[in-house]
Every structure is written in C-alpha cells, then in structure tokens.
C-alpha cells in the first residue's frame, strides 16, 4: 500500500481538507459554488482512486455519482437559484475569516488526534482517510454554524456529506445500495432546500438567517 498509490490517495484526501478550507475562506456566493464544485471533483477523484486501488468497481459508481450530481448538477442548480433570488452579493461572516481559519486548523488537529490513536493497527490509508474525512465533516459544520446566508448553509451541509462519502469509500465495504440511497437523499434534500429557499425568500424578503432569527425573537415577545 506504500509508495505512489498511497501518496496519491493521501494527496487527494488531504486535498479535500484543503478545499474545505477554501470554502471557509470564500465570502462570495459564486466563488463558493465554484469551490464546492471543486470539492466534489476532488471527492470523485479520491473515490475513483480508491476504487482503482481497492479493486472495488462499485466505488466507480459512487465516484460517477459524485462527479455528475455534486460537481455539475447541484452547483448549476444552486447557481440558478442564486440568480433567480438575486442574492449574489457578499456573504457576511460571523467573527471573521482569520478566526474561522484558526478554528478550522484546531478542528483538523482535533480530528487527527481523535482518529489516529483510536484506529491503531488498521490500514494506514484507511486511518488517514478517516481522519481527513472527520476533518471535512467538522469543517462543513463550522461553515454551517458561522454563516448567516442560507446558501452557505446548504454548501456546508453538502461538503459535510462529501466528508461522509470519503470516509465510506476509505472504510471498504459500504454496500452500493447505501451509496445510491445517500446520493438520492441528497438530491431530494437539494430539491426540498431549493423550495424552502424560495418560500423563505417570499416570506421574509431575505435569506439571511439573522433576519429570520430577529423575526423569531420578535414573535416570542
């Protein structure tokens, strides 16, 4: 497993973490969507490489699903939604990018600290993949927590899900049915979210979560 195959797998999985960081760094909607497409592309490559090295053909399907739906369909649809809603202005960041990046680095350290000692004795590639996947999940959560805009909430959720797929691909033996059902659930989630975005927008004239919070506060009083 050592050698070039390991290096490439390591590089691609690490690339996912890097792209997650780029998601954190972005504060414009279109750039965010593009980077998300890149995220999915790297995921597809990583899963594809796993399929190649593990000689598990069903993983090719996962990779293809990731490539078609996440790298192409979802970004395009989201871009449409953004265009129709007219919310392509700068996103607000709670706190500031520097703090987010610092927190992100801490989360990566945390996920490595958690994963590596626990999985001692397992295949080194799987261990590293798991650590990176956890990092991607945590970064996705951070993105969801720290942004006001509903679009970045969606992106955070999707990148989190990418992390799950990465973990599943590394872990060997996730059945194909699960993969496909996850992929479809994501698609359905997209549709639901899209509908919701329109509804939210109709009702509150904004997709800024803070505005909605303010509304809720108001109702409670």
């Amino acid at each position: 497993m050592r050698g070039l195959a390991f290096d490439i797998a390591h590089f691609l999985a690490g690339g996912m973490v890097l792209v997650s960081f780029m998601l954190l760094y972005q504060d414009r909607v279109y750039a965010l969507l593009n980077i998300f497409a890149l995220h999915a592309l790297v995921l597809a490559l990583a899963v594809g490489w796993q399929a190649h090295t593990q000689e598990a053909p069903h993983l090719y399907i996962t990779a293809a699903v990731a490539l078609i739906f996440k790298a192409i369909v979802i970004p395009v649809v989201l871009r449409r939604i953004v265009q129709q809603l007219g919310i392509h202005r700068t996103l607000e960041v709670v706190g500031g990018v520097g703090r987010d990046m610092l927190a992100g680095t801490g989360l990566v350290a945390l996920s490595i600290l958690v994963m590596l000692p626990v999985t001692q004795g397992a295949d080194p590639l799987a261990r590293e993949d798991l650590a990176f996947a956890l990092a991607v999940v945590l970064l996705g959560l951070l993105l969801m927590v720290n942004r006001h805009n509903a679009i970045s909430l969606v992106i955070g959720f999707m990148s989190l899900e990418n992390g799950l797929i990465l973990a599943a691909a590394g872990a060997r033996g996730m059945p194909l049915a699960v993969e496909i059902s996850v992929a479809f659930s994501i698609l359905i989630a997209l549709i639901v979210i899209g509908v919701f975005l329109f509804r939210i927008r109709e009702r509150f004239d904004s997709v800024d979560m803070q505005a909605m919070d303010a509304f809720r506060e108001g109702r409670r009083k």
Partner: protein
Amino acid sequence: MALMADYLVQGCQMALMLLLAPLLTGWIRWVKARLLRRRGPSILQPYRDLLKLLRKEVVLADSASWLFRVAPYLIFSALWVGASLVPTFASGLPFSWAADLIAIVALLGTARFFLALAGLDVGTSFGGIGSSREMMIASLAEPAMLMMVFTLSLLAGTTELSSVARFMSTADVGLRVSLALSLLALIMVAIAENARIPVDNPATHLELTMVHEAMVLEYSGRHLALIELSSSLKLLLYFSLIGCIFAPWGMATAGSTPGAYLYGTAIYMAKLALGGFLLALFETSIAKMRVFRVDEFLGAALMLGLLGALLLFVSRGL
C-alpha cells in the same frame, strides 16, 4: 585549485543574481503589457532606468537623517546576500552552509526593518502609512514562511537549502498534502512580500492603498536605484526559492563540469521565464483587494502553513 573554482562559482552566482534581477522585472512587465494588448517597454528597460537613476543627483528631504542615506545600501546588501545564498543553477556552493533557510528569512526581515525605518524617517504621512502596513503584512507573512520552513525541515531533516533541494529531487519525497499546502502558503507570502497584485500594486503611485511605493516615496537618484534593484532582487529571491524547493530539477552539484553549470543556468532561466509568465498571467486576471482583506489572505497562508506542518507530524507518526 578546486577550492578556487568553487569560490569562482559562488562569485558567478552573486553576479548572476545582480544581472538577472532587473531582467526578470522587465520580463514580467513585458508579458503583462502583452496580455493587456499593449506593446510595452523593452525587456531591458529596467536596466536603463537603473543606469539613469544612478547618474542623477539625490534630492534629500530637509528632515532626512543619516539612517535614510545608509538604509538603501543596507537593504541592498542584505537582499543581495540573501539572494546569493539560495541555490539557483547549482547546489552545494562553498558558502551555502553560512546561512540556512531560517537565516535567509531573517535576512529578508533585516532588509524590511530598515526599509520601514527609512519610510518613517522623513516624517511624512505617506511614509508612515507604507511602513505601518508593510510591517502588518510582514508580521503575518514571515510566520507563514517559517511554517513552510518547518514542513520542509521535518521532511528533509535539515533547514539548509542545498540539502533540501537535493532531498526534494529524489524520489522518496512523494506526493504530499503538506508540500502542496506549503507551496500554496509560500506563493501567497511571495505575492504579499513582493507587493504584487492582489495585495499591493507595483505599478501605481498616488493611491491610498499602496504600501511599498509609499515607503520609498522620498527616495531619489542612486538611493532609489538601489531600492528598485533591491525589490527586483527580492522578487528573484522568491522565484529562486520556489524553484529550488519545489522544482529542483536540472541543478548542477558543486564541483561538476562547466558544461553542467551552463546546463543548470539554462534550466534556471527557463524556470524563471515560466514563473514570470505565470505571475503576469495571475496578476492580469485578478483585482487588487482592500488593505484590510490582506490580513485574511495572509492569515489563510499562515493557517495553511501550520496545517501542513501538523499533517506532516501526523503522517510521520504512522
């Protein structure tokens, strides 16, 4: 005799740095002009500018002190020495052990320290703006660069550049995320430190967002020539650094034949031409950012560097 030859090569390296620095600046300007559909000045224009400036008299502000007059020479020599210590066409030169990568980073710091002081010396508001912002940028860029040094030294087991270059050209480096992260961090630092777009615009004056040009506003004549030459040297230094660490191919080793040296030089020039082209392409395709976005940009570089070092500690532990 072999020792003499070694020293000769070292001398050639110093001379080469001095000669190439304006050429690189000219090349980047020319490519940028071409990309903008302008004809642009000749590649040799920076040499002409320098010679002209050298022959002109210096107009010193009334409130300038001795530090203002000494600083250009100090800055120039620190950057020249720094640039000459980076392996370019050959590794393992006789004085390569005099300073490692950390010392080169610190030499850059010395040059910057005196440049910022010179900006404050005359006591104008522009000078102050430049110095203050330059130091803000540096205080994030320098640690980001040192994190890259950490990653390299953990990989190669040394901070000496010649050995790093030799290690990086062997096969056991492999594809590593840490290296990609470090490269990214180093490029971001290089952009910021050399006052390139999107952090600063090297071609502008009279703009409130300028940093480097504001600091050197009061310089004229031979002092300005030295400052200009120094910033070209600094750019060349960063190019050589990226080349010698991340693309160490084709370098001659110490004590090889003159033919190998010539071959190394040709490869080195090709790397510079490619790097310059990429920089120009990047600069024409992106807009300048606000000054207070710069800290986010460099903070990201610092975090990438740190992440690279962290990941490396992990993959070593496996």
